[in-house]
């Protein structure tokens, strides 16, 4: 019985160790890329510019995806609020893809991403007349590196003032 208890305790300690060490490795990996990716969506602010205070100009996407993340939707809501306040401003949404795809498909993918952003802005009351969509495919990366972090910065839709 006592032996059993010792075993049990040992097991608990061992499990705790494993859990802790797992946490530690995860943290290490995360801090390696400055906590700037979730899945493969960029969450950092390195490349982000601001349309106004608290209004980031861009949203990021997962590989081959055009789905808006929670963070992206928050950014776009801030953009919509800013556009409602500044009703004379029109914007161009520039959609981009990373370099790991064929050129023509990536042009279409950039267009799809920018349109995902456009649709979301419209649901927050921005008229489609104020929004132009432009895809650059993989032609205008913001980061010229060839690694997962660089690619994540390049998969983006950037809202640019048109006037």
């Amino acid at each position, binding site marked *: 019985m006592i032996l059993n208890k010792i075993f049990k305790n040992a097991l608990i300690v061992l499990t705790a160790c494993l859990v802790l060490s797992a946490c530690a490795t995860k943290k290490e990996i995360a801090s390696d890329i400055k906590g700037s990716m979730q899945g493969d969506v960029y969450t950092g602010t390195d490349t982000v510019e601001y349309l106004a205070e608290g209004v980031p100009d861009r949203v990021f996407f997962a590989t*081959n995806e*055009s789905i808006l993340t929670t963070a992206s939707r928050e950014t776009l809501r801030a953009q919509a609020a800013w556009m409602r306040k500044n009703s004379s401003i029109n914007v161009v949404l520039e959609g981009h893809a990373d*370099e*790991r*795809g*064929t*050129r*023509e*498909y990536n*042009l*279409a*993918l950039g*267009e*799809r991403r920018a*349109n*995902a952003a456009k*649709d979301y802005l419209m649901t927050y009351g921005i008229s489609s007349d104020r929004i132009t*969509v*432009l*895809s*650059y495919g993989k*032609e*205008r*990366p*913001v*980061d*010229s*590196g*060839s*690694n997962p972090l660089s690619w994540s910065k390049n998969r983006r839709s950037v809202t640019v003032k048109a006037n």
Partner: protein
Amino acid sequence: MIKKIITLFLILIPINSYALIEVDITRGNLDPLPVAVSPLSIDEKSRKSFEKALKKKNIGEEISSIVENNLSTSGLFNPLSKDAFLQAPNIANLKPRFEDWNLIKAQALITGKVNYVDDKLRVEFRLWDVLAAKEMMALAFTTVPSNWRRVGHIISDKVYERLTGEKGYFDTRIIYVAEEGPKTQRIKKLSIMDQDGFNNKFLTLGNELVLTPRFNPTSQMVTYLSYFKNLPRVYLLDIETGTQEVVGDFPGMTFAPRFSPDGKKIIMSFAKDGKSDIYTMDLENRIVDRITNHPSIDTSPSYSPDGKYITFNSDRSGYQQIYVMKSDGSNVKRISFGNGLYGTPVWSPRGDLIAFTKLHKGKFYIGVMRTDGKGERLLTENYYQEAPSWSPNGRVLIFYRETKTNEKGEGFTAKLWSIDLTGYNERQIKTPTDASDPSWSSLLSN
């Protein structure tokens, strides 16, 4: 990489009691045919006239070296060193001493003569079967002296055709995108050059981004994507006159253009509201037809040579795959089922194969499959490469490849490469700048 290693057969077929050389180009070539290209002979008067007109010391030698280079890069022929030639060019052209050519192991011999006649260049050339001691072909033609490089290409095509039984691809041009500058601010210009990299000419200035130029069937027109005034649209360019016009001016982005095999239509993608579909435009009456209608991305369309079918790529299955449909958009069938993503399908001019780019586990492949999707063969694997374009005889593919200039993946260089359908004979094509998106013309001398 999948390659079938099959040895080359040099078949000597006795016809009418003498042998004829034949090169089988359907097989991987391990033993190129030894051929002697004797310099085209030229008399002193003609030589001086050409020197004055073209600033080339000996135009006969220049033309011969074009032929040598073409035959050598085809991978099917092995031009022998001129140092070993025993017979003078002018005498060889009259009557080769076959023993001499046999001695240096030449199996075929090309001789010829070039003259300056009435401000024109007149060339005659002969192809000889050395073993059979017979003339296989004799041709002569006249052109303006400034066409001298084309003369070399036409001779190469005739020789290639006579020895392989198939049309050559040397008197052709490549249109491509010349690239310069950092990746984040790349400057791109339309550029055209001869198939061997000579006579390079920039067609646009680099003020706006240009992509994916493609020839029409007569190789006089080019359709491409331009970001002129930041509006990505399909354009049409007349190479000789330099006239440009927009053909895909719809409220959205038009891209991925190609000509129909009769040259009367442009097929392209039109993206709007997050969907890309395939459309055609009749160049004569400007009537637009919608070919696909699907919420997915449908792009990179390419016609079969008979115009009855279209291959394209679509992510309607969830991922980028290759499809074939009838040219009216009916009967859509997925044909790519291997692991990975498939893009940029291009129908072979022979009609039997579709070339494509495949992405799998972080690598890019150029490959071919039959039009029903069977018989997939990957010809070359690399970190990044795409956009194959067929030589007019359907034997060679040109594509572009980006290579990292250091191990950290920091710099990069983009170049044009070619590879035989056999998976052999991969070569870089020299360009003055970095290069991408090549498109091969038809045979110009047809």
